Protein backbone atom coordinates (compact mmCIF):
# COMPACT_ATOMS: atom_id res chain seq x y z
CA UNK A 1 0.00 0.00 0.00
CA UNK A 2 1.34 3.43 -0.94
CA UNK A 3 1.81 6.35 1.44
CA UNK A 4 -1.18 8.05 -0.24
CA UNK A 5 -3.50 5.07 0.34
CA UNK A 6 -2.43 4.84 3.99
CA UNK A 7 -3.17 8.54 4.45
CA UNK A 8 -6.53 8.23 2.72
CA UNK A 9 -7.49 5.38 5.04
CA UNK A 10 -6.31 7.30 8.10
CA UNK A 11 -8.21 10.47 7.16
CA UNK A 12 -11.35 8.53 6.20
CA UNK A 13 -11.44 6.84 9.59
CA UNK A 14 -11.31 10.24 11.29
CA UNK A 15 -13.41 12.49 9.04
CA UNK A 16 -15.95 10.08 7.56
CA UNK A 17 -16.46 7.62 10.40
CA UNK A 18 -20.15 8.53 10.83
CA UNK A 19 -21.76 6.67 7.94
CA UNK A 20 -25.25 7.79 8.91
CA UNK A 21 -24.31 11.47 8.57
CA UNK A 22 -22.53 10.85 5.27
CA UNK A 23 -25.56 9.03 3.84
CA UNK A 24 -27.86 11.80 5.03
CA UNK A 25 -25.95 14.59 3.29
CA UNK A 26 -25.47 12.52 0.13
CA UNK A 27 -29.23 11.96 0.05
CA UNK A 28 -29.88 15.69 0.50
CA UNK A 29 -27.39 16.63 -2.23
CA UNK A 30 -28.97 14.16 -4.65
CA UNK A 31 -32.41 15.55 -3.82
CA UNK A 32 -31.22 19.11 -4.56
CA UNK A 33 -29.58 17.91 -7.78
CA UNK A 34 -32.83 16.30 -8.99
CA UNK A 35 -35.22 19.02 -7.78
CA UNK A 36 -33.24 22.25 -8.19
CA UNK A 37 -36.02 23.90 -10.21
CA UNK A 38 -38.62 23.49 -7.46
CA UNK A 39 -39.21 25.66 -4.42
CA UNK A 40 -36.51 24.22 -2.14
CA UNK A 41 -35.65 25.56 1.27
CA UNK A 42 -34.01 24.27 4.41
CA UNK A 43 -37.37 23.46 5.97
CA UNK A 44 -38.40 21.25 3.04
CA UNK A 45 -34.99 19.55 2.83
CA UNK A 46 -34.94 18.77 6.55
CA UNK A 47 -38.32 17.01 6.25
CA UNK A 48 -36.94 14.66 3.60
CA UNK A 49 -34.39 13.19 6.00
CA UNK A 50 -36.31 13.88 9.19
CA UNK A 51 -33.61 15.95 10.84
CA UNK A 52 -33.66 19.45 12.25
CA UNK A 53 -32.89 22.17 9.77
CA UNK A 54 -30.01 23.53 11.85
CA UNK A 55 -28.45 20.08 12.10
CA UNK A 56 -28.85 19.64 8.34
CA UNK A 57 -27.24 23.01 7.70
CA UNK A 58 -24.25 22.11 9.89
CA UNK A 59 -23.85 18.64 8.37
CA UNK A 60 -24.11 19.80 4.77
CA UNK A 61 -21.56 22.55 5.33
CA UNK A 62 -19.26 20.12 7.14
CA UNK A 63 -19.25 17.53 4.34
CA UNK A 64 -19.58 19.71 1.22
CA UNK A 65 -18.04 23.00 2.35
CA UNK A 66 -21.12 24.96 1.28
CA UNK A 67 -24.57 25.56 2.73
CA UNK A 68 -27.47 23.84 0.92
CA UNK A 69 -28.62 27.27 -0.29
CA UNK A 70 -25.19 28.09 -1.78
CA UNK A 71 -25.08 24.65 -3.39
CA UNK A 72 -28.57 25.12 -4.86
CA UNK A 73 -27.62 28.52 -6.25
CA UNK A 74 -24.51 27.09 -7.92
CA UNK A 75 -26.49 24.28 -9.54
CA UNK A 76 -29.14 26.71 -10.77
CA UNK A 77 -26.48 28.94 -12.33
CA UNK A 78 -24.79 25.98 -14.04
CA UNK A 79 -28.13 24.72 -15.38
CA UNK A 80 -29.06 28.21 -16.54
CA UNK A 81 -25.84 28.36 -18.60
CA UNK A 82 -26.90 25.16 -20.36
CA UNK A 83 -30.35 26.57 -21.14
CA UNK A 84 -28.88 29.85 -22.43
CA UNK A 85 -26.43 27.93 -24.63
CA UNK A 86 -29.37 26.05 -26.12
CA UNK A 87 -31.01 29.35 -27.04
CA UNK A 88 -33.64 29.60 -24.30
CA UNK A 89 -34.62 33.19 -23.49
CA UNK A 90 -33.29 34.79 -20.31
CA UNK A 91 -36.78 35.04 -18.77
CA UNK A 92 -37.66 31.43 -19.57
CA UNK A 93 -34.28 30.28 -18.24
CA UNK A 94 -34.76 32.20 -15.01
CA UNK A 95 -38.01 30.40 -14.18
CA UNK A 96 -36.92 27.05 -15.62
CA UNK A 97 -34.10 26.75 -13.07
CA UNK A 98 -36.21 27.82 -10.10
CA UNK A 99 -35.62 31.55 -9.63
CA UNK A 100 -38.68 33.60 -8.78
CA UNK A 101 -37.47 36.98 -9.99
CA UNK A 102 -35.61 38.02 -13.09
CA UNK A 103 -33.75 40.68 -11.11
CA UNK A 104 -32.31 38.28 -8.54
CA UNK A 105 -31.39 35.77 -11.29
CA UNK A 106 -29.57 38.39 -13.38
CA UNK A 107 -27.73 39.83 -10.37
CA UNK A 108 -26.61 36.42 -9.15
CA UNK A 109 -25.65 35.28 -12.66
CA UNK A 110 -23.46 38.35 -13.10
CA UNK A 111 -21.83 37.97 -9.71
CA UNK A 112 -21.01 34.29 -10.44
CA UNK A 113 -19.90 34.56 -14.08
CA UNK A 114 -18.88 38.20 -14.48
CA UNK A 115 -21.46 38.66 -17.26
CA UNK A 116 -25.18 39.29 -17.47
CA UNK A 117 -27.24 36.35 -18.82
CA UNK A 118 -27.83 38.30 -22.06
CA UNK A 119 -24.11 39.08 -22.52
CA UNK A 120 -23.19 35.47 -21.75
CA UNK A 121 -25.70 34.12 -24.27
CA UNK A 122 -24.63 36.55 -27.01
CA UNK A 123 -20.94 35.75 -26.54
CA UNK A 124 -21.41 32.00 -26.43
CA UNK A 125 -23.76 31.85 -29.40
CA UNK A 126 -21.53 34.10 -31.52
CA UNK A 127 -18.55 31.82 -30.70
CA UNK A 128 -20.39 28.74 -31.85
CA UNK A 129 -21.55 30.33 -35.13
Amino acid sequence: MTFYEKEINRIRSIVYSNEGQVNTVIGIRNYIENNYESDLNLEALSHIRLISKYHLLRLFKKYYGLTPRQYLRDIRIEKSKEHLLHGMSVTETCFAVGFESLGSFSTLFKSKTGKSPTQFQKEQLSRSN
Partner: protein
Amino acid sequence: MRVTIISIPVRDQEKALKFYTEKLGFIKKLDMPLEGGNRWLTLVSKEAQEGPEILLEPAPNHFEPCKVFQDALMEAGIPWTGFDVDNVNAEYERLTKLGVEFSVKPTKMGTVEFAVFNDTCGNNIQIVEML
Protein backbone atom coordinates in the same frame (compact mmCIF):
# COMPACT_ATOMS: atom_id res chain seq x y z
CA MET B 1 -6.88 37.95 -12.15
CA ARG B 2 -8.25 34.71 -13.55
CA VAL B 3 -7.30 31.07 -13.18
CA THR B 4 -6.43 29.85 -16.67
CA ILE B 5 -3.52 27.39 -16.41
CA ILE B 6 -3.05 24.13 -14.53
CA SER B 7 0.50 22.96 -15.06
CA ILE B 8 1.35 19.24 -15.27
CA PRO B 9 5.05 18.32 -15.54
CA VAL B 10 5.74 15.70 -18.21
CA ARG B 11 8.89 13.92 -19.39
CA ASP B 12 7.83 13.72 -23.04
CA GLN B 13 5.42 16.32 -24.40
CA GLU B 14 4.45 14.39 -27.54
CA LYS B 15 3.74 11.22 -25.56
CA ALA B 16 1.74 13.26 -23.02
CA LEU B 17 -0.25 14.94 -25.81
CA LYS B 18 -1.24 11.52 -27.15
CA PHE B 19 -2.18 10.17 -23.73
CA TYR B 20 -4.19 13.21 -22.62
CA THR B 21 -6.07 13.56 -25.92
CA GLU B 22 -6.45 10.00 -27.17
CA LYS B 23 -7.07 8.27 -23.82
CA LEU B 24 -8.39 10.94 -21.48
CA GLY B 25 -10.30 12.85 -24.18
CA PHE B 26 -8.93 16.39 -23.76
CA ILE B 27 -8.64 18.68 -26.79
CA LYS B 28 -5.47 20.47 -27.90
CA LYS B 29 -5.87 24.24 -27.59
CA LEU B 30 -2.46 25.88 -28.03
CA ASP B 31 0.71 24.42 -29.53
CA MET B 32 3.54 26.93 -29.94
CA PRO B 33 7.19 26.06 -30.58
CA LEU B 34 9.70 27.31 -28.00
CA GLU B 35 13.48 26.86 -28.01
CA GLY B 36 15.18 23.47 -27.92
CA GLY B 37 12.21 21.50 -29.21
CA ASN B 38 10.05 22.49 -26.24
CA ARG B 39 6.47 23.61 -26.84
CA TRP B 40 3.84 25.73 -25.10
CA LEU B 41 1.26 22.99 -25.22
CA THR B 42 -2.16 23.38 -23.64
CA LEU B 43 -5.33 21.30 -23.56
CA VAL B 44 -8.93 21.92 -22.58
CA SER B 45 -11.80 19.75 -21.49
CA LYS B 46 -14.30 18.86 -24.23
CA GLU B 47 -17.15 20.03 -21.99
CA ALA B 48 -15.49 23.32 -20.99
CA GLN B 49 -13.48 24.51 -23.97
CA GLU B 50 -13.41 28.08 -22.68
CA GLY B 51 -12.38 26.86 -19.22
CA PRO B 52 -8.94 26.44 -17.63
CA GLU B 53 -6.16 24.96 -19.76
CA ILE B 54 -3.82 22.13 -18.79
CA LEU B 55 -0.23 23.03 -19.59
CA LEU B 56 1.89 19.97 -20.40
CA GLU B 57 5.18 21.33 -19.19
CA PRO B 58 8.59 19.70 -19.82
CA ALA B 59 9.96 21.10 -16.53
CA PRO B 60 11.39 17.78 -15.18
CA ASN B 61 13.76 17.64 -18.15
CA HIS B 62 15.22 21.07 -17.43
CA PHE B 63 15.01 21.60 -13.67
CA GLU B 64 16.29 18.77 -11.51
CA PRO B 65 14.31 19.66 -8.33
CA CYS B 66 11.08 19.35 -10.34
CA LYS B 67 12.09 15.84 -11.41
CA VAL B 68 12.98 14.91 -7.82
CA PHE B 69 9.62 16.19 -6.54
CA GLN B 70 7.69 14.48 -9.33
CA ASP B 71 9.47 11.16 -8.66
CA ALA B 72 8.77 11.45 -4.91
CA LEU B 73 5.04 12.00 -5.52
CA MET B 74 4.93 9.06 -7.92
CA GLU B 75 6.72 6.81 -5.42
CA ALA B 76 4.29 7.81 -2.63
CA GLY B 77 1.26 7.29 -4.90
CA ILE B 78 0.23 10.94 -4.48
CA PRO B 79 -1.68 12.47 -7.41
CA TRP B 80 -0.15 15.52 -9.07
CA THR B 81 -3.66 16.82 -9.73
CA GLY B 82 -7.21 15.62 -10.19
CA PHE B 83 -10.14 15.93 -12.58
CA ASP B 84 -13.86 15.81 -11.88
CA VAL B 85 -15.89 13.13 -13.62
CA ASP B 86 -19.61 12.32 -13.64
CA ASN B 87 -19.06 8.62 -12.94
CA VAL B 88 -15.77 7.25 -11.59
CA ASN B 89 -16.69 3.61 -12.19
CA ALA B 90 -17.61 4.23 -15.83
CA GLU B 91 -14.36 6.16 -16.39
CA TYR B 92 -12.39 3.42 -14.65
CA GLU B 93 -13.92 0.80 -16.98
CA ARG B 94 -13.39 2.94 -20.07
CA LEU B 95 -9.76 3.79 -19.27
CA THR B 96 -8.87 0.26 -18.15
CA LYS B 97 -10.03 -1.02 -21.53
CA LEU B 98 -7.68 1.52 -23.14
CA GLY B 99 -4.78 0.07 -21.16
CA VAL B 100 -4.53 2.80 -18.50
CA GLU B 101 -3.07 1.49 -15.23
CA PHE B 102 -4.74 2.36 -11.94
CA SER B 103 -2.91 2.39 -8.60
CA VAL B 104 -6.19 3.01 -6.74
CA LYS B 105 -9.40 1.42 -8.03
CA PRO B 106 -12.68 3.32 -7.50
CA THR B 107 -12.85 3.95 -3.76
CA LYS B 108 -15.47 5.71 -1.67
CA MET B 109 -14.34 8.33 0.79
CA GLY B 110 -17.27 10.02 2.49
CA THR B 111 -19.01 12.25 -0.01
CA VAL B 112 -16.71 11.44 -2.95
CA GLU B 113 -15.59 8.41 -4.92
CA PHE B 114 -12.17 8.54 -6.53
CA ALA B 115 -9.56 6.50 -8.40
CA VAL B 116 -5.91 7.12 -9.28
CA PHE B 117 -4.13 6.24 -12.52
CA ASN B 118 -0.66 6.55 -14.03
CA ASP B 119 -0.45 9.11 -16.87
CA THR B 120 2.70 7.36 -18.25
CA CYS B 121 4.49 10.73 -18.20
CA GLY B 122 5.65 10.70 -14.58
CA ASN B 123 2.42 11.46 -12.69
CA ASN B 124 -0.39 9.91 -10.72
CA ILE B 125 -3.68 11.56 -11.66
CA GLN B 126 -6.86 11.36 -9.63
CA ILE B 127 -10.43 11.31 -10.96
CA VAL B 128 -13.19 12.30 -8.55
CA GLU B 129 -16.96 11.98 -8.53
CA MET B 130 -18.99 13.91 -5.99
CA LEU B 131 -21.60 11.64 -4.42
